[in-house]
């Protein structure tokens, strides 16, 4: 095939249909593959089907399901991956495929063999790979597949693809990215074989040919990722060399290009633009087949730019979890109403118990129509109807006010702060945490569009609230000061975030006393101090390490950002007192005391509920939500905001 050059003419808009192997995609937006964990004993559940149905109904042109393994050695002990090689689960898979096609999208099943990547969970079997080359993410070297065993892998993909198509999928996508087995064969570092599979494209080509014998001309897509570091042996230059050769050897319907390997492949808030955006034209020039580019696309401007640079389709996953109606809204020109993915990587990556989303309260666990949430009922009185007052314009209060306004209630939102956002806005003040501000901006814009009265910088007096029969307290939390006796300038992490650019230039050595939970308060204090030019930052923690509360993905990206930074970590220690030039440390095990030079101490204290001293009148029903009940995560705040609105609205009817 002749490689295409970048389009010279005007690019199609994201709303334009696209034809793929005779199938019509209603637009250029693709929901890329991910697991839901709503899978029991390897078979998708009703909850799983409902998830994909909702996603397809939101308007994406093509939906690719993920977390589907082709062989037992590629599963996890929890068995939440779909076991595609088993024909007996076909009915469950059919439910999933029908959910997508009923929603109007083209349904594609991504198939994966993890190879040497155990995801850190271990399996019941020995990890396998192209060669005896250890993954940087694993402690041991995998078993190198024999020639005969590789042929078994080919068969596993063939059988799984046949099962998927027979269950109703329009096509399949081979996962040859993220460092999984097919990528291990494509890598010049990991594939050191001297048999026929030493040709790096041989295994993927054989898999494609084998599947073709089962599914005919239905689409077979290929997902690859630009992997970082020389040790991956599969960077952009490698892909530019391999893809034309592979497409010539075994024709595919499309190539889906993303980035990263396990632990780096889910960019957090620090990644604010699509990493591949500048490379689209180069990839386009190398491949003649339809090109799907993924990773980090969040805005219409970036999507259109990718299409303009030569991509045919643009893929996203997390934005569809945050707002399944993403496609419908942006095609209607209503990007402002899209509930944004913040890149927090909290709910969507932890599977507790299934995929959820911090900012989308409608995504609930199995058996629940939404994320479970129970607002705290402080007083219940008999009065019904009338206007509603919400006190506190953080994520909980704004979500509550939005939902109330949508239900037709007359609502006023108060906050003593001059700017909306509460703890989310505070968190966004740190470097690389701007994702929270995106969410605050979204909520603020929605409140304006819904006509909610917002009174910032105002603390309503009891008389001001007399007119409201329904009151919702969403007044958040405040960080407690950690008492450390001594002379050194000592600030809470809240105070430090608010003024670090003023404090740090006067204090070159910054000590951060973490609470041991390894969460963002201490981490953001570190990143803020470094951004402001601190000569040295030292984290002191009674726990066993730094940033231990983060998911592996966020922690890896954090450590990449901190590479080369003057950061020291003193684990299993605490601060007993300060002096004029530093802090006195005590080891929590042996009690040994040492001195650390520092110019300022930042402490991470417990956040305590903050509620107004407010005596409700005889007619007032009062509820409390979010951090002012118990300080937790944004996900709790948003879900309780929504639930409180529903409870209040029920009383208004």
């Amino acid at each position, binding site marked *: 095939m002749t490689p295409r050059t970048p389009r010279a003419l005007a690019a199609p808009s994201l709303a334009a249909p696209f034809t793929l192997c005779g199938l019509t995609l209603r637009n250029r937006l693709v929901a*890329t593959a*991910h*697991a839901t*964990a709503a899978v029991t004993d390897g078979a998708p559940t009703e909850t799983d089907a409902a998830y994909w149905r909702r996603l397809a109904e939101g308007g994406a042109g093509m939906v690719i399901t*993920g977390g589907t393994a082709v062989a037992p050695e590629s599963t*996890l002990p929890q068995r939440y*991956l779909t076991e595609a090689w088993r024909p007996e689960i076909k009915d469950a898979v059919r439910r999933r495929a029908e959910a997508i096609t009923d929603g109007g999208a083209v349904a594609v099943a991504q198939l*994966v063999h993890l190879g040497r990547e155990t*995801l*850190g*969970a271990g399996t019941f079997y020995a990890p396998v790979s192209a060669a005896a080359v250890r993954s940087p993410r694993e402690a041991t070297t995998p078993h190198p597949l024999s020639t005969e065993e590789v042929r078994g892998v080919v068969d596993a993909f063939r059988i799984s693809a046949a099962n998927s198509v027979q269950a109703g999928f329009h096509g399949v996508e081979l996962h040859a990215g*993220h460092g999984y087995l097919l990528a291990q064969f494509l890598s010049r570092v990991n594939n050191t074989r001297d048999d026929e599979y030493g040709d790096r494209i041989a295994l993927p080509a054989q898999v494609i040919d084998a599947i073709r014998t089962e599914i005919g001309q239905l689409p077979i897509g290929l997902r690859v990722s630009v992997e970082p570091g020389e040790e991956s042996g599969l960077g952009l230059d490698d892909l530019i060399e391999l893809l034309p050769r592979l497409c010539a050897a075994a024709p595919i319907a499309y190539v889906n290009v*993303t980035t*990263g390997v*396990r*632990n780096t*492949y*889910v960019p957090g808030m620090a990644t604010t633009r699509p990493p591949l955006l500048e490379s689209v034209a180069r990839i386009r020039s190398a491949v003649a087949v339809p090109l799907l580019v*993924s*990773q*980090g*696309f969040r805005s219409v401007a970036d999507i259109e730019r990718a299409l303009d640079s030569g991509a045919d389709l643009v*893929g*996203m*996953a*997390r934005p*569809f979890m945050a707002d399944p109606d993403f496609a419908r809204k942006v095609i209607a020109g209503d990007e402002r109403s899209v509930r944004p993915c913040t890149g927090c990587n909290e709910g*969507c*990556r*932890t*599977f*507790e*118990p299934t*995929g959820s989303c911090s900012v989308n309260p409608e995504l609930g*666990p199995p058996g629940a129509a939404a994320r*479970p*949430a*129970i*607002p*705290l*009922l*402080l007083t*219940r009185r008999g009065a019904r109807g009338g206007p509603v007052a919400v006190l506190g314009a953080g994520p909980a209060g704004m979500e509550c006010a939005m939902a109330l306004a949508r239900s037709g209630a007359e609502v006023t939102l108060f906050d003593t702060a001059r700017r909306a956002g509460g703890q989310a806005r505070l968190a966004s003040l740190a470097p690389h945490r701007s994702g929270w501000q995106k969410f605050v901006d979204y909520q603020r814009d929605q409140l304006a569009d819904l006509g909610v009265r917002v009174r910032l910088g105002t603390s309503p007096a009891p008389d001001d609230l007399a007119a409201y029969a329904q009151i919702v307290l969403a007044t958040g939390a405040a960080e407690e000061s950690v008492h450390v006796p001594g002379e050194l300038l000592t600030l809470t992490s809240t105070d430090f975030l608010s003024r670090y650019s003023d404090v740090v230039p006067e204090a070159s050595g910054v000590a951060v006393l973490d*609470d*041991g*939970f*390894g969460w963002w308060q201490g981490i953001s204090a570190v990143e803020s101090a470094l951004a402001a030019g601190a000569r040295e930052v030292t984290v002191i*923690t*009674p*726990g*066993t390490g730094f940033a231990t*509360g983060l*998911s*592996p*993905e966020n922690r890896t990206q954090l450590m990449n950002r901190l590479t080369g930074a003057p950061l020291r970590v003193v684990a299993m220690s605490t601060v007993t007192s300060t002096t004029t030039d530093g802090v006195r440390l005590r080891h929590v095990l042996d009690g040994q005391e040492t001195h650390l030079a520092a110019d300022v101490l930042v402490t991470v204290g417990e956040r305590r509920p903050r509620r107004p001293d407010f005596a409700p009148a005889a007619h007032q029903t009062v*509820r409390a939500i979010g951090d002012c*009940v*118990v300080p*937790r995560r944004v996900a709790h705040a948003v879900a309780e905001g929504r639930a409180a609105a529903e*409870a209040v609205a029920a009383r208004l009817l």
Partner: protein
Amino acid sequence: MTIRAWAAIRQWAGRPVVLPPEVCACGIGHAGVMRLDDIDRLDRINGINGINGINGINGVDGRGLVGAHQRVSRRRRPDGDRGRPDVACLSPDVGRGRLDFPRWSPDVGCRRLDAARWSPDVVHRRRTSSLGPVD
């Protein structure tokens, strides 16, 4: 009255909470945890004497709510002493629908604790990658 108490617990435990085994007396590790002062708060919130109303039923310091988990208490204290425990461990049967008590109030609320913050050394988060959404 017991039904009321159970219904309240069930409402409270409707949210999955990962519980560190060293806190969870029963060792099951995925039910809920409630401090006794939260139980007091539950009393106040509900504005009734409901929880106290089952005093003595199970012989746990006059707090039948805790004693409803006799099995748990016994396991935690092999000598059979069901004295006042630090925490109440809710059986997984509660909140999962196996104990089918009638709903008491659609709006019952109480303070919930985030088990992940129970102690610095107990953070029961998944340590694995998940094949969740990437792009």
